[in-house]
C-alpha cells in the first residue's frame, strides 16, 4: 500500500515536472528560436515568465531523484549505471541552463553579452529535455538488463535506438508546444507578441502529430511493451481523452481562447504522461526491474509516505501562493507602487 502511494507521488512529481519544468525548457527553446522584429521582446517575455518560478519548477526533478533512490534504491543504482552517459550530458545541460539564465540577468545589458548568454541558455534548454526524453525512452525499451543487481547490458543499451531518440525529439516538441501555449496567456495585453507565440504554439502543436506517430512506429521494435500497451482495455479511452484535449488546445489557440488552450494543453501533456506511467507500471526498468522487486523495506516506505504527506501540506499552499503572486490576474503593470 505504502509502495503504491510512493509510486503515485513519483509519477505525479514527474508529471508536474513536465508541466512546469518542461515548459521552462520550452521557453528556453523559443528564446533560442526568437526571430523577427520582436525577437528581443519575445526573449524578455520568456525571461519574465520564467524568472520567479523556474527554481521551484526545477525541484520537481530533485524530488523524483530522491524518491527514486530512497524508495527504489536498486533501480536508481541500475539506471545511473546503464544510463551514465545520457544522464551526465543531461546534467551538463541543467548546469548550463540555470547558470546562463541567471548570468544573463546580472551581466552587462549590452546586446552582444545578452545574446551570448541567451544562446547558451537556449542550447542547454534543447539539450536537457532531449536527453530526458531519451532516458525515459531507454527505461521502457526493454534493452537494459540487470542480473543480481548488476547491469549486464553495458553502457550503450537502450538509449541509442531510433525509439529513444524519437522520445527525445518528442520531449522537445511537447515542451516547446507547452511553453508557447503558456506564453500566449503570459503576453495578454501585447497582441503582437501574443500572436508570435500563438503561431509557435500552433506550429509545434501540429508538429506533435507526426512526431507521435514516429514514436509509435519505432516503439514496435524499440519498446515492445509500450507498443503493446495499446492492447489494454483502457488504452482507447485514454487515447480518446488525450486527443480531445489536444484538439481543445489547438482549437483554443485557433480561436484565441488562450486560457482554454493553456488548460487543454496542460491536460494533454498530463494525460500523455499518465498513459506512459500506466504502460511502464509495474516495471521501473523494463524488463528486469519492477517497483516490487526494487522497493525499499516497508519501514522506509511508510516513513516516506508520512514525510510526503507532511511535505505536501507545507508545499502545495506555498506553491499555490507563488503562482498566485506571479501568474495570477495581476500583471507586472499592476505592481504595488514603489515607496
Amino acid at each position, binding site marked *: 500500500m505504502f509502495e503504491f502511494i510512493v509510486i503515485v507521488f513519483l509519477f505525479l512529481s514527474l508529471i508536474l515536472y513536465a508541466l512546469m519544468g518542461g515548459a521552462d525548457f520550452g521557453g528556453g527553446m523559443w528564446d533560442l528560436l526568437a526571430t523577427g522584429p520582436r525577437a528581443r521582446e519575445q526573449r524578455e517575455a520568456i525571461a519574465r515568465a520564467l524568472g520567479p518560478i523556474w527554481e521551484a519548477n526545477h525541484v520537481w526533478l530533485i524530488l523524483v531523484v*530522491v524518491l527514486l533512490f530512497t524508495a527504489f534504491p536498486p533501480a536508481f543504482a541500475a539506471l545511473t549505471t546503464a544510463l551514465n552517459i545520457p544522464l551526465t550530458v543531461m546534467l551538463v545541460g541543467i548546469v548550463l541552463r540555470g547558470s546562463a539564465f541567471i548570468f544573463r540577468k546580472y551581466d552587462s545589458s549590452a546586446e552582444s553579452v545578452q545574446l551570448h548568454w541567451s544562446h547558451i541558455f537556449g542550447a542547454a534548454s534543447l539539450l536537457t529535455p532531449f536527453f530526458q526524453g531519451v532516458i525515459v525512452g531507454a527505461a521502457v525499451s526493454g534493452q537494459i538488463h540487470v542480473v543480481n543487481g548488476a547491469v549486464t547490458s553495458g553502457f550503450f543499451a537502450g538509449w541509442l535506438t531510433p525509439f529513444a531518440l524519437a522520445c527525445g525529439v518528442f520531449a522537445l516538441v511537447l515542451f516547446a508546444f507547452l511553453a508557447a501555449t503558456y506564453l500566449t496567456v503570459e503576453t495578454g495585453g501585447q497582441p503582437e507578441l501574443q500572436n508570435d507565440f500563438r503561431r509557435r504554439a500552433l506550429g509545434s502543436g501540429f508538429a506533435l502529430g507526426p512526431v507521435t506517430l514516429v514514436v509509435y512506429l519505432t516503439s514496435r521494435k524499440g519498446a515492445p511493451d509500450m507498443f503493446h500497451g495499446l492492447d489494454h482495455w483502457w488504452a482507447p479511452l485514454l487515447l480518446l481523452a488525450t486527443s480531445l484535449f489536444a484538439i481543445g488546445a489547438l482549437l483554443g489557440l485557433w480561436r484565441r481562447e488562450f486560457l482554454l488552450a493553456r488548460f487543454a494543453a496542460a491536460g494533454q501533456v498530463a494525460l500523455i504522461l499518465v498513459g506512459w506511467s500506466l504502460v511502464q507500471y509495474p516495471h521501473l526498468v523494463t524488463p528486469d526491474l519492477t517497483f516490487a522487486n526494487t522497493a525499499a523495506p516497508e519501514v522506509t516506505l511508510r516513513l516516506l509516505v508520512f514525510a510526503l504527506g507532511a511535505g505536501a501540506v507545507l508545499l502545495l499552499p506555498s506553491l499555490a501562493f507563488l503562482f498566485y503572486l506571479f501568474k495570477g490576474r495581476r500583471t507586472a503593470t499592476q505592481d504595488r507602487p514603489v515607496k
Partner: protein
Amino acid sequence: MSDLILARSQMAMSLAFHIIFAAMGIGMPVLMVLAEGMHLRTRQPVYLRLCRRWAHGAAILFAVGAVSGTVLSFELGLLWPAFMDQAGAIIGMPFSLEGFAFFTEAIFIGVYFYGWNRLSPVLHWLAGWIVAISGTLSGIFVVTVNAWMNAPAGFKLVNGHVTDIDPVAAALNPASFHEVVHMTLAAFVATGFVVAAVHAFFLLRDPANQFHRAALGLALVVAGASIPLQMLSGDHSARAVARLQPAKLAAMEAHYRTEAGSPILIGGIPDDATRRTRYAIRIPDGLSILLTGNPHGTVTGLEDFPESDWPSVRIVHWSFDIMVGAGMAMFGLALWSGWAWWQRPPLAQHRWLLRALVAGGPLGFIAIEAGWAVTEAGRQPWIIYNVMRTRDAVTPMPGLGVPFLVFTALYLFLAGMVALLLRRQFFDTDGPAAETAPAETDV
C-alpha cells in the same frame, strides 16, 4: 589514474565547488533578513538598499548552488551506485526531507527576489525568513547523511545483507549533532567574514560611506556571534570523532603511537613508513588534556589499526591544521573588531583592522574546504565507515576521466563568471547611481 581515483576526484571537486554556494545560500539570507529587519525598525533607507544589493549576490549564488546540488544528487548514483543501492533505503529519508526544504526555499526565493512590489514589507520580510530557515534546514538534512556515512546506525548487516532498517535511528546517528552544528555555524562564519571583507575593502577607499558601514556592522555581528560558538563546537566535534572514529582523529593529529601524555602536533611532515611526524611543533600532553581532560590520559594512535584502514595522514593532518589555524585567525579578527568597536567606534576609522578583515575574507571558506577534506578524506578508505569500502562502491563505468574533466572545466568557468558578476554587483554600490537608491522593480 584509476577510475576509483577519478571518481573520488570528481566527487571531491563537485563538493568543494557546491559547498561554497551552499554555505553562502545559508548565510546570505540571514544577512538579508537582518538588513531588511533593520530597515523595518529604523526606516533608514540605507538598510533597504543594502538588503537589495545583498539579494543580487544571493540570487546568483543560489542559482549556481541549485544546479551544482542537482549534479551531486545524480553523482551519488553515477559514481557510487553500489553505495546508493545499500544506503538509499536507510538514509534516503533525510535526503527526501532535504528535497522538501529545498523546495520551500526555491519557492520563497522566487517570492522574495521578485516580490518586492507585490507584498507588504512585513510579508516580504517573512518570506525572507522562510528562505533563511528552509536553507538552513536543507543544509542540516544533507549533513545528517554525511554524518551517517561517518557513524553508520539504524540497520544491521547480516551476511552482507542490510536488515532491520530504522531510518530514524540512521538520521539521528551519533555523528549528526556535532556535524550539523559545526557545518551550520561554519556557513554563518564564512559568509559573515567574506561579506565583511568586501565592505571593509570599500571602506578603506571611502571611510564615510554609510552603506558600507552598515554592511560591515551586520556582517561582523553574524560572523562575530558565530565564531566563538564554532570554537566550542570544534572542541566538541574533536571529542566525538575520537570516540566514533579514532583512526580519523589519529590522522587529524598525525598521531601514530598509542601513548599516555600525548602531545599536540602542529604542522610537520607525517611519515607512514617510520610512523613518526617530523618537524612538528609539539605541545606536550596537549592532546591528552583536550581529549581526556588528564595530562596522562591515553590517546589511541594509528598503530592500533591495520595500515589498510588508514586514511591519508598527510592530507587529513594538514587540512585539520589549516582549518584550526583559519578558525583561530577568525576568532582573533572577531576579538579585534569587538575591541575596536568598544574602544573607539566606528570601525571604519580603524584602517589596520579593515586591512586585516580584507585579508581574512577567504579564511572562512578555506576553513570549510579544509574541514571537509578532514571529514571526507579522514573517512577513507571507507565510504560507509567500517561497513563499505569506497573502492567497492565505485561505478563499473569506464572512462571516468571524461566527466571529471568536463565538470572541472565547467565549474572553473562558472566560478570565474560568478566572481566577475559578484564584482559587478558590489562595485555598482560604489557608484553615484546606488546612492540615489533606484526604484528597482525586482532584483
